[in-house]
């Protein structure tokens, strides 16, 4: 049972960590693009 839960635990933690990382990357890029766009429109 310990082996089984070790296996499942590793899989869930890794998948969850990857999804969290993707969400963070997406948010940061969205903010960066929005900032650049507003900066660009200010210059124009």
């Amino acid at each position: 049972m310990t082996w089984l839960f070790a296996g499942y635990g590793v899989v869930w933690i890794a998948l969850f960590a990857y999804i969290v990382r993707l969400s963070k990357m997406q948010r940061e890029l969205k903010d960066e693009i929005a900032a650049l766009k507003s900066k660009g429109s200010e210059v124009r």
Partner: protein
Amino acid sequence: MESRPRAPMVLEAALFMWMAVSLVLIFFYAPVEAQMGIVQKIFYFHVPLAWNAFVGFLIVFIASFRYLATRDPKWDARALAAAEVGVLFTTLVLITGPIWAKPVWGIWWTWDSRLTLTFVMWLIYLGYLMLRHYVESPDRRAVLAAVVGIVGFVDVPLVYFAIRWWRTQHPQPVLMGGQDSGLDPKMATTLWVCSATFLLLFTVMFRRRVAIERMRQELDAFREEAEIARVEGARS
């Protein structure tokens, strides 16, 4: 409030539901294997992860070809996204395999053809991601990555057929493996449901990763445009 597109939300809701169904099937529906005991249930994650990693690498192969033919950056983004999720899934295959092997074989690892080729496949696609990290020019990076994505795919069918072509320590195929292969119907149902769940998970991660890469490409184009404007401004 910012509204989210409907398609990803539907996909994510379906994924959540399928995950719950898969866990119920694994723990309450699929029987415990007579010889290996409960640890055999790792199989329901291990095999779908491997199959979907193959799907990922097939996408890398197709998208790389498409990129070289069209030079459209969306194919490069798709190849990268598929490679990254494929590497994640292969990493988990390489972790869950030994966790099953230790109580069943008594060893964590052996250099048989299936295991070795899987490890080589993981190294190839890890190399693919590292190459992308170290080449600075976006066009050169995309072309080099596409070449590696096409050539590297040679190992994928070898991994799949290794247990059919050679005698290995790794268990023989339980599906489509000839006369002596087969799986209890309840185990087979659970395996197919888990495979569908992981395919859905792959799709959710892949779509999100492609969206991120497209945003990064947009950002790079923006910066390039700003740099050109700055240089031209300095000249005049």
